[in-house]
């Protein structure tokens, strides 16, 4: 009898390779560095001013399905949709293509959100806790297929106006990293 179970465990051990990080759900992130948050900021619109030194991206947000789905919720609730639509772009540049004006690395996107960019991208420093920014970063990158398929969110319970990130083909990022270059 017992031998059967040993055998079956071996047969399904493949599963154990493919879990863990994808399912981690971090509810109490380490509080963001005090100094970043407590500098009261008067205007939200100060592109480029006091640039954020992007900290190294905590990989957990890029690898946790929960974080990405939280990022999706925040992306809608914080009205990123207002300018970037559902990734198709509008006032702001589209996010589901392969063109990354300021770089496609998590740290670049994080900097874009936190310090803002010229031509209208406001700075959300102090407005958005860092861990939420990282979650939004993860979601934004999933829009152009830069995340593993089993982490990217599938279709959501909304009108069906864009392909699910999960089914996005992986794009090879172009565009030059760094704040000096401007968009067209």
């Amino acid at each position, binding site marked *: 009898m017992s031998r059967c179970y040993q055998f079956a465990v071996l047969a399904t051990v493949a599963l154990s390779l493919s879990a863990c990080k994808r399912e981690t759900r971090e509810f109490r992130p380490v509080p963001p560095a005090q100094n970043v948050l407590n500098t009261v900021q008067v205007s939200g619109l100060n592109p480029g001013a006091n640039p954020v030194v992007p900290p190294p991206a905590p990989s957990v947000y890029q690898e946790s399905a929960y974080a990405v789905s939280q990022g999706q919720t925040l992306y809608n609730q914080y009205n990123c949709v207002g300018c970037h639509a559902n990734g198709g772009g509008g006032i702001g540049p589209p996010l589901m293509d392969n063109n990354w004006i300021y770089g496609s690395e998590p740290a670049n996107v994080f900097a874009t959100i936190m310090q803002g960019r010229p031509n209208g991208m406001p700075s959300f420093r102090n407005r958005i806790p860092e861990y939420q920014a990282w979650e939004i970063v993860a979601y934004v990158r999933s829009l152009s297929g830069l995340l593993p398929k089993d982490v990217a969110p599938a*279709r959501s319970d909304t009108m*069906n106006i864009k392909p*699910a990130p999960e*089914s996005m083909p992986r794009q090879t990022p172009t565009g030059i990293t760094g704040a000096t270059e401007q968009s067209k």
Partner: protein
Amino acid sequence: MERLRQRPVLDVSGLPTVVFGPANIIWLGNLFYMLIEGTMFALLIASYFYLRTRVDEWPPGVHPPYLWFGVINGILLIISFFPAWWVQRQAPTGDLSKVRLGLTVMVVFGVVCMVLRGYEFTALNVGWNSNAYGSIVWTLIGLHTAHLITEWVETVALLAVTFSPKMEGRKFADIGVNSDYWYFVVITAVLIDFVIYGTTRLL
């Protein structure tokens, strides 16, 4: 238990070992299997009409699927009823050549129907991921395609067996039962064609 007692005996040594049709337990097993699959189709069709009650326009915002691939396919499947029936008639006679012929005809029908089915998929005018209507249509027709392929593979396998030296009586019985399942595939096909192509136009 006292073994050497004298006891009357019901002698069954003379009974046959190869029987056809409902007498064979394979027939019963196959019947249960068809009941299971039939329930699945029934529930999916019920879901189709349930979803229809939830929207004003049906199909919602798209054209109904292109008619003719489906109709031709349905007609072909209905015609394929007859070779299946003929094989079922021939199996109990143990006439190997006739059975082979019949099975071959069924296999050919299967191929044609699967190709046509492929065209049906291209002409549904809706994606499975565009709305609930598309999802249920694709699921209905997809589930049936799965049955079509399964039944076709089974027929091919049986045809292959008829050429093996190990062909035996019980395989003839299997071939007879296989036709029952072919009928099932035909009937469900007609039903689903009516739901997908008919109800969208007629009601």
